[in-house]
């Protein structure tokens, strides 16, 4: 069995004491920061990214992946206990999770989330192992035209899935692409949009943008309604779910895993869409649908499984195509580039130990999560209790030092502050930052592929529709864009988000 051989190689890489240690540290730090109310995975990863720079690439990526699951899992814990979701994907968890906690069943809700996540993570690990290599060999046949069209599809998907106005999201994507072009043009060496500032020659760092828009911007937003923000934490009781709970969990976990895995593979979606879809489907077909919104365990198990499955399968486009599908994987791409690895279809053949090591470490990370979560729940609860007025100055300090340490220049601190303002202003105007960050990292890649495709076709733009794969990708992108304009779909889209924020 080829697959088993690969997984064995992965196990050998991931299970070395050093890598296990950093996987554990990543999961631990990720959970610790993820449980802090109002801090989502994107901000957490951006903050902790500089810590991994001192490590060798494989270890660093294993640790980063651990931070990712940890922060996502920590976010779920917070959603259940205090009703303050750190990020969009765990919004739906609060609906039933927090109700359960209020009824003294916080333990059962946490267990549903842990078991669901672990099961989903295990399935998704095998999916990546199974689908990764064939997909990568298909991707090896991709020319520049196909890559360009694939990125168009990814950006269109992120626009379609963005909350709020479609037009605003399109604008954010284009603006993100433009901002990504700041710096030296790789082809001609021309300095673009640098205004003679020497520090801009390398462009603006993506971590700087992410920390500014997601870290600082989020803090300013949280301070807005600080007075109403009270951390009334429910006591954690009933740590073990009953036999009845287990029975009711099984089907939603299976369905959530399937939905989350399928939707996570789509470029541009990540885990958010999955958890929304899994919740609404469960609400429609469950026997206990009357209990939804009042503390149904199905309403925790399904979105949490979907959430984790999607988070993990979103690594498939990242590892095989080199295309990030959400801000978190965009940060991973950035981290890989910093470590000298160009993510793409060749990684799997050129660096099998890295590829398989990362995949197996995902599963180990999920296992550590479950093991870690139960004994440490008391500690997480204490961390959630830290009042926000003591929390955010600390976050600012870590962001400022972290962003400085990227290139040891104060300029990045200035830009972070600037992007904090930009992020806040745009959020006030109803423009989501996620599509912009994705476009920001894709900007230079897209230009390069467009340039090569057009060079090969001698300036004939029809090349994008003459090549079958490229044409298909563009057609799918076109359909996705049109689907939003169809009244029925756009209504469902709005409803899904309203349900989430309500």
């Amino acid at each position, binding site marked *: 069995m080829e697959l088993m051989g690969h997984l064995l190689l992965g196990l050998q890489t991931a299970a070395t004491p050093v890598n296990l240690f950093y996987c554990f540290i990543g999961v631990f730090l990720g959970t610790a920061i993820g449980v802090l109310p109002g801090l989502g995975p994107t901000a957490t990863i951006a903050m902790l990214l500089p810590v991994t720079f001192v490590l060798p690439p494989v270890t660093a990526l294993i640790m980063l992946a651990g931070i990712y699951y940890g922060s996502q899992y920590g976010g779920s814990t917070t959603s259940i206990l205090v009703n303050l979701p750190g990020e969009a994907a765990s919004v739906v968890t609060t609906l039933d999770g927090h109700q359960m906690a209020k009824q003294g069943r916080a333990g059962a809700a946490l267990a549903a989330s842990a078991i669901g996540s672990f099961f989903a993570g295990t399935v998704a690990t095998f999916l990546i192992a199974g689908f990764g290599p064939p997909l990568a060999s298909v991707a090896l046949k991709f020319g520049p035209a196909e890559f360009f069209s694939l990125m168009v599809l990814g950006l269109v998907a992120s626009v379609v899935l963005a909350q709020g106005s479609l037009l605003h999201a399109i604008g954010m994507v284009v603006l993100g692409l433009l901002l990504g072009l700041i710096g030296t043009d790789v082809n001609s060496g021309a300095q673009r949009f640098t205004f003679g500032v020497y520090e801009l020659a390398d462009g603006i760092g993506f971590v700087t943008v992410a920390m500014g828009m997601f870290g600082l911007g989020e803090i300013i937003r949280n301070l807005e309604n600080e007075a109403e923000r009270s951390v009334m934490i429910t006591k954690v009781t009933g740590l073990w779910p009953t036999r009845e709970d287990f029975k009711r969990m099984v089907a939603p976990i299976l369905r959530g895993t399937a939905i989350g895995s399928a939707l996570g593979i789509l470029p541009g979606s990540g885990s958010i869409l999955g958890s929304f879809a899994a919740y609404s489907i469960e609400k429609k077909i469950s026997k206990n649908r009357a209990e939804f919104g009042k503390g149904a365990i199905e309403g925790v198990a399904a979105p949490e499984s979907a959430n984790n499955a999607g988070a993990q399968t979103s690594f498939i486009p990242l590892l095989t195509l080199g295309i990030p599908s959400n801000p978190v994987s965009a940060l991973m791409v950035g981290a890989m580039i910093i470590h000298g690895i160009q993510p793409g279809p060749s990684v799997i053949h050129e660096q099998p130990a890295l590829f398989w090591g990362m995949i197996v470490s995902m599963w180990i990370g999920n296992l550590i999560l479950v093991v870690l979560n139960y004994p440490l729940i008391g500690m997480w609860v204490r961390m959630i209790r830290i009042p926000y007025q003591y929390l955010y100055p600390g976050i600012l300090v870590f962001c400022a030092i972290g962003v400085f340490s990227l290139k040891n220049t104060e300029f990045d601190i*200035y830009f972070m502050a600037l992007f904090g303002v930009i992020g806040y202003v745009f959020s006030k105007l109803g423009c989501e930052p996620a599509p912009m960050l994705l476009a920001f990292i894709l900007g230079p890649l897209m230009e390069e592929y467009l340039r090569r495709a057009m060079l090969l076709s001698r300036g004939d733009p029809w090349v994008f529709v003459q090549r079958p794969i490229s044409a298909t990708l563009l057609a799918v992108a076109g359909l996705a864009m049109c689907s939003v304009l169809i009244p029925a779909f756009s209504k469902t889209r709005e409803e899904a988000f309203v349900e989430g924020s309500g």
Partner: protein
Amino acid sequence: MIRSSKDFWTGLIYIFFGASAILIARDYGMGTGGKMGPAYFPTVLGGLLAVVGTIAVIRSFIVPGTPIGAFAFKGLVLVCTPVLLFGIIVRGAGLAVALPLLVVISASASVRFHWRATLIMAAGLTIFCVLVFLKGLGIPLPVLGPWFGG
């Protein structure tokens, strides 16, 4: 009459950035479709952004939208200025001065600001960061900078 101020202002911002991109890119070589110069892609994107912005502005006069919420200027200023200040003084004054300043100024943005607790936190964070980031991870920043004889 503007019926959606969100659309209107977003549109204006997009038009501003789009138009600036096109204008600035005029200094770079345009090239041809088959041999794109450095100005090609930015110009296309700038044009696209300006078009999106124009549509948003036009739409703002036709389709009613939700109003823009109040700007939290206090939070905005008290979060971003100390970060800027931190960047400006950290090399000269050192982390032991810049960090507490960042903590105290930003903490004052909170409605639950409390002097004593904030100062204790600033001291704790400073010690932690000096030990972890400067001594541990070796980030090249002084504890006390040249301004204070460090």
